């Protein structure tokens, strides 16, 4: 049994988080506890609040009430760029790649939080900038190589197959060596073979970091996740391991009318 403080230091905790957009309650007292070294799935029908939850976790949306604790620190008021520095990374639904930048440049941007030299000093061409850039470039190249993207380093994303572009987005989120990575529908648009590959990749990643996964493909979710949180209408309706979730009648009920087999 881990002591309480060690547990807190290795977790990302959302406690009773509520988000209101005008009169609409997008998230209603949602709690979630994700750990390093595991894949935590967030599922639910369309409009259940999955992406809103991710937006809260990465700092895009400030919760109306509730608490966020990362590694023992309360982070509710932090901006995305500050969270990125703390080791929380995210991929977007769709791609969000910079279409006019090469694969290498896209991945290098992901390493921005590693820069210590400010923009104005950097403009003067301080020597530190040059070494720093070389370091980030090396890091980016090694992540690119890890994901098997080396042949595409100088290509522009729109000229690449969709599955490769998805990997570029993943590489960009990994270059910081984050402690937690939030993957928003990483499997959308992939073939079955590519999805199996993605599953292996996610399981591999979870050895070194915490993965939060929003995904519609239940096969993938059931295969890789150790814990699953189910949202419906902005509320947590179930929480548990894949077999518990599969057997939960409330979850099946929530998915009625949706083309998903759990």
């Amino acid at each position, binding site marked *: 049994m881990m002591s309480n403080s060690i547990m807190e230091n290795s977790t990302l905790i959302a406690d009773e988080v509520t988000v209101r957009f005008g009169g609409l309650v997008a998230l209603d007292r949602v709690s979630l506890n994700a750990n390093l070294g595991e894949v935590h799935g967030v599922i639910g029908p369309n409009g259940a609040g999955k992406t809103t939850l991710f937006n809260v976790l990465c700092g895009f949306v400030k919760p109306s009430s509730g608490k966020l604790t990362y590694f023992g620190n309360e982070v509710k008021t932090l901006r995305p760029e500050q969270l990125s520095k703390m080791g929380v990374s995210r991929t*977007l639904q769709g791609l969000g790649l910079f279409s006019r930048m090469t694969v290498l440049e896209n991945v290098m941007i992901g390493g921005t939080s590693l820069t210590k030299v400010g923009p104005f000093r*950097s403009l003067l061409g301080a020597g530190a900038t040059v070494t720093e850039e070389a370091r980030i470039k090396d890091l980016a190249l090694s992540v690119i190589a890890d994901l098997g993207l080396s042949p595409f380093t100088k290509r522009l994303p729109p000229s690449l197959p969709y599955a490769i572009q998805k990997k570029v987005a993943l590489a960009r989120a990994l270059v910081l060596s984050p402690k937690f990575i939030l993957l928003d529908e990483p499997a959308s648009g992939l073939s079955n073979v590519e999805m199996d590959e993605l599953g292996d990749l996610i399981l591999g990643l979870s050895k070194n970091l915490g993965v939060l996964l929003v995904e519609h493909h239940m096969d993938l979710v059931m295969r890789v996740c150790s814990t699953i949180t189910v949202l419906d209408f902005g509320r947590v309706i179930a929480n548990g391991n894949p077999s518990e979730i599969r057997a939960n009648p409330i979850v099946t009920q929530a998915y009625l009318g949706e083309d998903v087999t759990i």
Partner: protein
Amino acid sequence: MSNLGNFVLIGLSNGLIYSVVAICIVLIFRSTRVINFSQAALAMFSTYVAVSLIDRGVPYYLAFLIAVIFGFIAGALIERFLMRRVESKSPLNAVIVAVGVLITLEAMAGVIWGATLRNFPSHFSLIGIKIGKSRLGISPFDIFILVVVLVLLGALVFLFRYTKLGMMMRASAFAPEVARLLGVRVGRMLTLGWALAGAGGAVAGMLAAPRVFLFPNNMDAVLVFAFTAAIIGGLDSPVGALVGGLIMGVSLSLIGGYLGSDLENPGAFLILVVVLMARPQGLFSSISERRV
């Protein structure tokens, strides 16, 4: 040399100055979707700073450098303390603030330095270079303009193409939300963009002043020409802005030379109208769906 050749040469030289201002407009438009109407006033103000230094015996090149640094800092301050406040509002608010800055700076220049025409001492001869018996339309000063603009463009290309900082600025301009997610401090990138535009404006002001004299709104016409140049170039393409500036320079020089200089300003507007009607996305824009 023939008149035509000389008109073209003069036009290219003027065009380079329009290009610099147009590139500054594009620099800010790309990252904020705001047309910076205060660009001209900032250029004029920086030039006044330089001329008052030169009057006090400061060497030309040092005064030039100080003007550029002044433009850089002024641009950064305007973004940080004025534009930042309207950033999240409608773009119209930002445009109105920019026009406000334009009017304020022009009025302040009038109060500080007097609203009268004044001669700007040129460091180089403005008289055409003589080759054999004929005199060319370009002077040593035009060569200086060419060198300065090429150095400036080279520096900008280097910054945006080959440095991480340039990448971060491009990322912020292209998708600010994604950039923030990746740890880019987008606010700082915007400040830097305005600072660079301020510095570029100062360069343009220093290059334009010996020809157009110096008075508080001496750069207004240049702004109109540069704005047209930026539109021709598609508003988000620096290369387009460069070419647009040259097209404007040569067109206006030809109009002025053959039809009379009174027709230069109406000519600029005519070009603007024709471009907006025939190809509203500009000649170089990659955004084909944009409509003005």
